[in-house]
């Protein structure tokens, strides 16, 4: 009986050891000096232009950021430090939340990472997994073909004519009309993370306000305020579009 218990205990211990080694396989592979994205997450992968890109931090501890995004001051206006909220109902996220978004919603297609800068900026390098939707497009009026195209890409659907009784039922709140506007159905619209050059860039705040103006739900938009400046400051992977 004692022998059986001992054998069971040994087997359980071995199973636990195997599991823990599996869970920390990445740490074992990368080594103790590896600088992870966050604790227990050394890197992640995203798809960008059909390629799998490994997003990680620069491992050289002597690496210093130089160049444009290392500057501390730019002309203001127009490059003034932005408020933390582009709009009261839109949430703000940091790098940790962005990593989470990249591994979940971006990966399963329910989320879109938007580089809201003009193409001239986008071509200089972007955060992997981002698509370029300039704020100039996203600030257009509801009838503009460019915004219509953008909304359709983002999963919104034009409603067409709404019948009289359907409209009544919606107005009375008898149906779930949280994501319905007069012209658009945003119930299947994707969750967005919108970013630009950083805390002193107004491009993504303008894009966010433009989206809100055409009815995009605020709870489906997040603002990555750190933008390219903070992304590069952390030595995180960037890609130059082809």
């Amino acid at each position, binding site marked *: 009986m004692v022998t059986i218990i001992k054998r069971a205990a040994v087997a359980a211990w071995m199973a636990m050891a195997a599991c823990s080694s599996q869970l920390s396989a990445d740490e074992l592979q990368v080594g103790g000096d590896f600088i992870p994205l966050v604790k227990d997450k050394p*890197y992640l992968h995203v798809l960008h232009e059909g390629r799998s890109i*490994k*997003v*990680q*931090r*620069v*491992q*050289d501890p002597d*690496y210093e950021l130089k*160049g*444009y*995004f290392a500057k501390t001051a*730019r*002309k203001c206006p*127009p*490059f003034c430090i932005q408020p933390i909220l582009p709009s009261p109902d839109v949430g703000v996220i940091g790098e940790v939340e962005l990593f989470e978004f990249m591994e979940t919603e971006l990966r399963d297609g329910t989320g879109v990472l938007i580089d809201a*800068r*003009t*193409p*001239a*900026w986008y*071509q*200089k*390098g972007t955060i992997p997994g981002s698509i370029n939707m*300039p704020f*100039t497009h996203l600030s257009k009026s509801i009838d503009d073909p460019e915004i219509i195209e953008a909304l359709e890409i983002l999963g919104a659907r034009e409603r067409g004519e709404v019948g009289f009784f359907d409209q009544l039922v919606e107005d009375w709140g008898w149906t779930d009309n949280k994501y319905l506007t007069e012209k658009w159905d945003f119930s299947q619209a994707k969750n967005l993370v919108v970013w630009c050059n950083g805390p002193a860039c*107004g*491009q993504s705040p303008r894009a966010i306000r433009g989206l809100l*103006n055409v009815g995009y739900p605020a709870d489906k938009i997040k603002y990555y305020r750190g933008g390219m400046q903070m992304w*590069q400051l952390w*030595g*995180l*992977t*960037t*890609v*130059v579009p082809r």
Partner: protein
Amino acid sequence: MQQRVVVWRLRRSFISNGETVDVRSAAGWLPALLLMGCTLAGGALAADDYLSELDAEAKKVEARSIDGEAGTSTVEAPAEIGGSTGGGRSGASRERFESLLRQKYLGTFGFYKKLPERSRQEIFIDYRDGAPMAEVRKKIIDRLLQR
């Protein structure tokens, strides 16, 4: 958005008045119409100025690809700031001019597309003959506002 509200309220007050508008009373609307035009133009120019500033700033940025695994940062030198506009652009085609507008001055390109063909041709000729881009863009806006 505020500009559109101003336009709507002016229009409604005009219609609800119900009076026959003769030349003397119409003259009273001129300052309001001029103010509206200036406000709209000012807004358009302000947006265009912001795009110009963004574009000028983008020229200072090096193209950077950070490869964390290699611990390297691949940098391409930024484009030269400024540029010579003297001597004309005899090799410029209208397609290239319009492509340049669309890529670098999206707001101005939108205005340019609203112009009649004759105006567009004249503007392109100015550009081909070496007019600075700032002057070309000002001409586009002036033409749009019938100035």
